[in-house]
């Protein structure tokens, strides 16, 4: 109801606004819901860091494009040895950091040695542990030696966690980031905004924008007003419940794309009664996926039946493995020795999709006698209780890492799934570089995980951006975290 009212008011405002003439701009103001705690993407996991700096301020050897494919970045070309253990990269010439120092193979070596060091605080250190040596051949050639083949190596070095930093400036990147990207960091008014400006001597194709300001607005209703009032030109992932205000408004466009976020009802497989397959199957039968998607994502989520992104070429549809069937669920519960159901807690992190999904699932489970107690938590508490100490029955969380099915091969992971078959498959998958073979292995893993009903597989989060209708070139999908401004421009 409130949305309708503000929409009516807003439309009146826009009629007025159209009478003002707008000059062709080369500046953009991007609304972001979270302010980064600091700006070094190699020393923290916060998405907010990558949103500002990834591919804008910092670049990696490879570059991930908006379809998730790997493109050349600071490395213009590379060759891979037969055994998949040696990668030789040719680096672009004439690249400089924003402080004027030159980029060469020594910086690459420094970057990766810093990630792998004893005292490294890289949030994704594990992704790079296959690297056994980085050798400088000449200033524009660098060779990586791996201890085992790694099918995702080229993707992983294109992530925000492996952007190239310089020994002269790396220590200060948290507050004064110095990279090689098309935009240089100018100013950060804490609590309010970060300003980037085009870097004149950029080695690659110049971006159309000369200045970009990230404005941090946490509240959804406030962001709506800021968009309507023209104080920000767009936001990359807006709350689904606010989208009706912008749908069909000619001043704006809503970009709906995919993310890598598999949202699951994480289940503590190591704990009774969830260690029983029948109990997990019963829960899977009791879940009405569409109801959850409609309630928690306003219909924008995509159903998943296993832990895999639907837009990925290796995906197979397993949503019908355990269809919604309450009788079947009760039957399985009886078989497992819980004819009257049981009680459990569902710990929910402070994100809207989790809180709403939690309420819907609790009412769905109640129909088969599973009584859920909902416990709302802050992030820090959730990370410690659920993730680090594994002190939970059920939780709801979106796993946003790309291609992260490997977490099911780690018996120490928080949901405690220990299946040697999956572990063996994952090892083979990691060591395989042949595409067709990889696809087959990945699909086999998806199927086993779905059949084991390891977790309740709910939906893939959508990315829903709202932008000024005259802006082009934004990423619609989010294959990695970031708001890449390289191709963004204004059109008449």
């Amino acid at each position, binding site marked *: 109801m409130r949305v309708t009212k503000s929409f009516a008011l807003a439309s009146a405002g826009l009629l007025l606004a159209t009478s003002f003439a707008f000059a062709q701009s080369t500046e953009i103001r991007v609304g972001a819901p979270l302010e980064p705690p*600091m700006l070094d993407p190699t020393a923290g996991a916060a998405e907010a860091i990558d949103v500002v700096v990834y591919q804008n301020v910092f670049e990696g050897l490879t570059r991930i494009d908006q379809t998730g494919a790997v493109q050349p970045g600071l490395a213009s070309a590379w060759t891979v040895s037969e055994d998949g253990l040696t990668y030789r990269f040719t680096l672009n010439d004439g690249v400089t950091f924003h402080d004027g120092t030159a980029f060469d193979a020594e910086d690459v070596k420094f970057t990766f040695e810093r990630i792998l060091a004893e005292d490294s605080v890289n949030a994704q250190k594990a992704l790079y542990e296959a690297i056994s040596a980085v050798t400088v051949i000449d200033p524009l050639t660098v060779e990586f030696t791996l201890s085992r083949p790694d099918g995702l190596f080229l993707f992983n070095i294109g992530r925000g966690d492996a952007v190239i930093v310089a020994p002269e400036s790396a220590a200060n990147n948290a507050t004064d980031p110095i990279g090689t990207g098309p935009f240089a960091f100018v100013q950060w008014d804490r609590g*309010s905004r970060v300003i980037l400006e085009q870097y004149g001597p950029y080695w690659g194709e110049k971006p159309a924008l000369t200045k970009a300001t990230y*404005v941090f607005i946490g509240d959804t209703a406030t962001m709506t007003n800021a968009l*309507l009032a023209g104080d920000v030109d767009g936001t990359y992932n807006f709350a689904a419940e606010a989208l009706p205000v912008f749908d069909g408004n000619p001043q704006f466009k809503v970009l709906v794309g995919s993310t890598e976020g598999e949202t699951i009802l994480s289940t503590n497989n190591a704990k009774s009664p969830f260690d029983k397959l029948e109990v997990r199957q019963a829960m899977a039968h009791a879940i009405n996926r569409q109801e959850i998607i409609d309630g928690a994502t306003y219909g924008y989520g995509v159903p998943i039946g296993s832990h895999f992104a639907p837009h990925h070429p290796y995906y197979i549809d397993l949503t019908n493995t355990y269809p919604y069937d309450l009788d079947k669920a009760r039957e399985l519960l009886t078989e497992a020795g819980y004819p009257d159901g049981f009680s459990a807690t569902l710990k929910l992190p402070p994100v809207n999709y989790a809180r709403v999904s939690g309420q819907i699932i609790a009412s769905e489970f109640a129909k088969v006698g599973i009584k859920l107690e909902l416990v709302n938590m*802050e992030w820090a508490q959730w990370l410690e209780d659920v*993730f680090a100490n594994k002190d939970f029955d059920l939780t709801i969380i979106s796993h946003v890492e790309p291609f992260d099915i490997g977490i099911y091969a780690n018996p120490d992971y928080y949901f405690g799934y220990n299946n040697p078959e999956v572990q063996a498959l994952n090892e083979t998958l990691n060591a395989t570089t042949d595409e067709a073979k990889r696809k087959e292995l990945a699909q086999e893993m998806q199927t086993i995980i779905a059949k084991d009903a390891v977790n309740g597989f709910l939906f893939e989060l959508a990315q829903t951006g709202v932008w000024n209708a005259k802006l082009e070139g934004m990423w619609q999908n989010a294959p990695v975290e970031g708001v890449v401004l390289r191709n963004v421009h204004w059109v008449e």
Partner: protein
Amino acid sequence: MTLYILRRIFGFLVTLLIAAAVIFFLLDLLPGDPARFILGINATPEAVAALRLQMGLDDPAIVRFGNWLFGMLRGDFGLSQTQKLPVAGLIADRMAVTLPLTIFAMVISVVIGLPLGILAARHRGKIIDTGLMILAQTGVAIPNFWFGMLLTLLFAVTLRWLPPGGFTPWNEDAWASLRGLVLPSLALALPQAAILARVMRTALVDVSSQDFIRTARAKGMTFGEALWRHGVRNALLPVLTILGLQFAFLVAGTIIVENVFYLPGLGKLIYTAIMERDLVLVRSATIILVLVVSFTMLVVDLAYGFVDPRIRERRA
């Protein structure tokens, strides 16, 4: 008077020390590992351990408490764990928004609230009084953030006279900074003005039934004159108390309005720091707030003495 002041100051210092201990040890009990929070769910245990070491989280609590207290005595409030910057500077930056905002809101609420309260008391029981008090009751009941959203919709989205939020630093464009503070100060001031009006009216009504007002009337003053010359000053005590509380509330409690207008104020700084488990920042910022609040209360106490000679004489 001197003894009165000394006792107030001693109370002020004891409050600070107790607050410091409570803040420190309560925060220490908060679940959640700051290092784990920064590195997220894919971090290796070694990386988390390395960061804990870097952040000095592994020392015993009592050692960290001591370090903190002595640091503060030297004027060193520590380094924010997530932002890697001195806490004192971070807070000073936020004060450049929060203090002007608070002062504007206070001024607006006094300018609106007190005259309306006096007006209502003068016309006690009449239609003006009833009307004003209904208005004030509404003002108290309206949440300031909601009023803020309405202001934004009207003045920023529809009329486009003022920005919907955000803050331009003073040294960049002071005019833009001022414009940015208009709507939030109005949003903050309305409920405060309503409260002030009610308190002022009640206090004046109480005073007006006192003997000295009757005496003043007997000497030939009109009711309005008697109220103005003898009543208002006597009614100021409860108003001062409320003003002190309001100032403290505005400095520390503008977080929701700051969110509505995306202003980089102190409330938002502390809120974010709690979410990110930046304990150094939270406790230093909180103790500074305690300092501001206790100091305001000290000033109010001393002001009582000024307004009311009975207090300074009795307590001395």
